[in-house]
């Protein structure tokens, strides 16, 4: 009696599991089959949803709590050109690609460096910005060191989890120890405290931190590394979206709008009092 009951229970549970699983796969194929371009979805909805995470000065909260920065400018311009409203969806960097794939937003415009690994999961537009990584070092701890000296067991690097600097440091300085943090503030703080020798991030972040703490921090090398270029990231199998975003970027490279805007946020300091 007891055994048959248990058996029935097992069969019941198995059936339940298989139903829920088949539904998951069904939703996946339905998405593929309805391969409607995201551009059409945006037009129909009247809103473009842009996923981003906060990196100074790509995008940040100003003192009014509003999003400002290079990416919000790009996003607003893109939306204006498409004749739709814009909605920014702040998303954790480590989960931003899964969120795009799951359809939480239409495109990632968040200073995402084009890398072959990421390209396996999502499509990238042509680069709309080029920003290289630089090293931000604790001056006292790294005095007189050459670039080769950084590749040693005695050196500790910090970086932001899931971001390009982490991969770059692992390749360029394989012997060094690497600590990963959830945001840039913490990884810089570790260098400030002397718990790590250096961190890497895309300019102008490091230069700005060095200016803010001139006694402790500096950017020891002029050289910028890994300037691969940043692109919009979108879901795969959507040639229309790829074509549209590429044309948009090409057009605004011609008009010079992208360059002017990039210079405003990355070369100048005019926006600084808006943010702090």
């Amino acid at each position, binding site marked *: 009696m007891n055994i048959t009951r248990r058996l029935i229970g097992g069969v019941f549970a198995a059936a339940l599991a298989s139903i829920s699983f088949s539904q998951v796969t069904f939703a996946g194929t339905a998405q593929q089959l309805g391969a409607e371009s995201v551009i059409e979805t945006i037009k129909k909805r009247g809103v473009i949803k842009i996923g981003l995470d906060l990196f100074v000065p790509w995008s940040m909260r100003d003192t009014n709590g509003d999003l400002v920065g290079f990416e919000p400018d790009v996003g607003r311009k893109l939306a204006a050109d498409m004749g739709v409203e814009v909605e920014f969806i702040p998303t954790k960097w480590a989960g931003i690609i899964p969120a795009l794939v799951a359809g939480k937003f239409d495109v990632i415009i968040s200073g995402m460096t084009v890398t072959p690994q990421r390209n396996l999961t999502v499509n990238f537009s042509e680069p709309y910005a080029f920003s290289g990584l630089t090293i931000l070092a604790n001056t006292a701890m790294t005095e007189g060191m050459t670039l080769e000296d950084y590749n040693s067991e005695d050196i500790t690097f910090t970086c932001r989890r899931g971001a390009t600097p982490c991969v770059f440091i692992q390749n360029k300085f394989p012997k060094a120890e690497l600590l990963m943090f959830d945001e840039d503030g913490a990884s810089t703080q570790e260098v400030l405290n*002397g718990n790590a020798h250096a961190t890497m991030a895309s300019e102008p972040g490091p230069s700005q931190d060095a200016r803010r703490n001139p006694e402790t921090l500096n950017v020891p090398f002029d050289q910028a590394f890994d300037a691969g270029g940043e692109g919009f990231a979108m879901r795969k199998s959507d040639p229309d979206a790829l074509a549209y975003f590429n044309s948009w970027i090409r057009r605004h490279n011609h008009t010079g709008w992208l360059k002017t805007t990039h210079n405003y946020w990355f070369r100048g300091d005019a926006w600084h009092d808006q943010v*702090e």
Partner: protein
Amino acid sequence: MQKIIKKLHWLDFLVLGCVIAFFYYVLTQMSGNLNYNWRWDKIPNYIFKYHTGREEWFANVLLQGLIVTIRVSIYASILALVLGVILGVARCSHNLIVRMLARTYLEFLRNIPPLVVIFIFYFFLAEQLIQAMNIESWSYKVAKLENNQIWEFFCGDMRRFPSLVSGVIVLALFESAFVGEIVRAGIQSIDRGQREAARSIGMTQFQEMRYIVLPQAMRKIMPPMANQFITLIKDSSIISLISVQELTYKTQELVSSTHMIFEAWLTTAMFYFVICFGLSLLFGKLERDKR
């Protein structure tokens, strides 16, 4: 004050002195090793501020986050209570399969770290539910309505509604396991004789639960339930991982933008503390009044 001092033994003063000395030591060590530029004066602006563009007072990022946290906590605890009662009753069911399913759910949740549970529920359950019920396009429609103040009051920005829903669902499912255990303990604490008496006067199983067992059990489970509610508020910080814009997430945004790591996190900690401690005092008082 005088009374309190008189009550204290000299050993109490020694202990107190040691504690103060310890914190003083930590503080001096910290200021030596910590190369940090404190900017506490900026924090109040991120709670409440006069908007320079819109010319009005508004709740800035931290307060916005706090409001979302409170909203999510209230909805999630209501849902967790409902699910938990069902689960608790199922755990005491006469039917073996029901009992086994409830037990499986519970053990699954109790023995997997919350972080993993949150991700599993988010991607496999909440997301599917939101897609199946078309919640997204519905909430966009509501967001465009003129008269949506009621919706905005209860749900915040309607465009963020899907993320609120998934946050509530995920948190409620996670907490329901613990609520369920509290309910089960409450039900099982009712004397067997009570249930037998109910059955002997001809009550059905449902009536027995509804009129005899649950009313008595509810009284017993109120204190641990209140405690669980406070835990839920603290646990709500986990859903920042799925980018629900609550207090913890907003704090991370603030830190990313301004690099005020310690000020922002300490302020957030204070918010959580004030709410949770306030509630625990309130529940304590309610309980004492009842007796």
